[in-house]
């Protein structure tokens, strides 16, 4: 148990630092999609719930596990879906000048 704890803390510390460095660079433009994708990734808790259901050690753990799988799956599906929908909407005026030559209007 002791080494498992230290191993876990190592992983937590490193992932935390990587998280800080990576997320600091994310443009505020995308903060809403960021929140919805981290939500979907966080729902990886579904693997814990799946193992709980699969082991079927008690009736209670089985039922709680099923409910947990449902909750996490809805986050995975919904989270990725809405993130994708949002990101599809972000368009730049440069490669796709819908409004003709007015994409980058007069600067003077």
């Amino acid at each position, binding site marked *: 148990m002791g080494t498992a704890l230290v191993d876990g803390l190592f992983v937590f510390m490193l992932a935390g630092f990587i998280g800080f460095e990576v997320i600091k660079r994310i443009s505020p433009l995308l903060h809403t999609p960021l929140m919805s994708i981290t939500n979907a990734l966080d729902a990886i808790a579904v693997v814990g719930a799946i193992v709980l259901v699969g082991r079927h050690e008690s009736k209670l753990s089985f039922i709680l596990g099923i409910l947990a799988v449902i909750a996490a799956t809805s986050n995975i599906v919904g989270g990725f879906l809405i993130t994708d929908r949002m*990101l599809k*909407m972000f368009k730049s005026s440069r490669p796709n000048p819908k409004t003709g030559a007015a*994409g980058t209007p007069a600067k003077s």
Partner: protein
Amino acid sequence: MTEFVGSQSFIGLIYLIASALFILALRWMNAPPTARRGILAGETGMVLAIGGTLLQLGIEGKLEHIAISYGWIFVALGIGTAIGVPLGLVQMTAVPQRTALSHAFGAFCVTLVGTAEYYLGGTNIPPFKMSVLCCEVILGGLTVTGSLMAAGKLQEVLPQRPITFKGQNLFNLSMLVVAIGIAVYLVRHPGAPHLYPVMVGIALVFGVMLVIPIGGADMPTVISLLNSYAGLSAAAMGFVLNNKLLIVAGALDGSSGFILSVIMSKAMNRSFTNVLFGAFGQVAAAAAGAQEARPVKSASPEEAAGILAAASRVVVVPGYGMAVAQAQHKVRELYDALTKRGVDVRFAIHPVAGRMPGHMNVLLAEADVPYDRLMEMDDINGDFPQVDVSLIIGANDVTNPAAKTDKSSPIYGMPVLDVERSHTVMVIKRSMNPGFAGIDNPLYYMDQTLMLFGDAKVFVSNIVKELGHG
């Protein structure tokens, strides 16, 4: 080969790859051109992890037993998908409440798994496992109810006004102390199953109490904070199950939520404790009551259209009011009409405009406004003296110059957009009622300010019509 496929190292490797893909997913999220690749990486990691887990379960379980479990797991995955799809297809204006709801779902999953682990472990749970398990369910529990409350407020099922009572902070604090006290007792004496539901119950009530005193304008900070809690509870679950993939995903989500909460509180010049225990609305209401009616100048859509057409640089400042009025598509038409006339139109986005981080950007992107026209506060603030017209649509506190000059203002010190430096300021507003925080805005009484009274959507479309005639 089968021995390897079912082994701990095999599933460990799968989880390692999934962790790397999750980090890449966030790495690619940093800018719009690569962001959709990030989703693909995240999805691949997710499918690998779930597939690997199911495979391992099948190999290590007993045959007749596992068939039943598989059946139920697929039913649950199916139901989850059926709930997830509509949640993924909500309107963009409903994204804040959807996000709050999904924080609740994530934390619900974590709390259920923690509870199951507790009752399976019984009296034999070692102290370390028990302490992370308590962290998991306390954080998870308060996130479930806190997020549901936040979602209710955002959906306007619950009142948006802060609900406060005397001794609230003391009451909340003592609840938290009792919950932690029970947790400490359970770590030392795991065989006290009657105390466990009490601890979870207190965490659930604490979540409600934490969010009811928080007003609508503080929602961006609260959503970010709940995001962070949801992540941390998932990481704690990773410790309980000794699952490193969960620890990684939880740590990433936790740090993401934390960074966002720090950005949000900085953008409001308030500390975490102030957001959580401040009950902002009350102070503000008292300050607003003392104001007298002062004269303001107003203008019609025709006049506004004339001024806009004559300008060469226009900055639009959107706020929550634009979202409420669903005016983003009309705003895009205005952008098109002005751009066609050679007017340089940009959008100034305050970090806390709207109800969640990045809210305005998503709404304007939905309306097809190119994202390179959306400027962050720090990038555009220096440009305001060269701006001919600042058009404020449904924003209030983020443009309030009192935050810079008036030490008695409740928002003194909050970074704001320097709109009053532009030549003309136009404010679309329903009436002279103060905004959500209830703070009066001296901007409205300035010489260069014109008030455009009316519904944001109707007013903007009238301006567009006028521009079409001329």
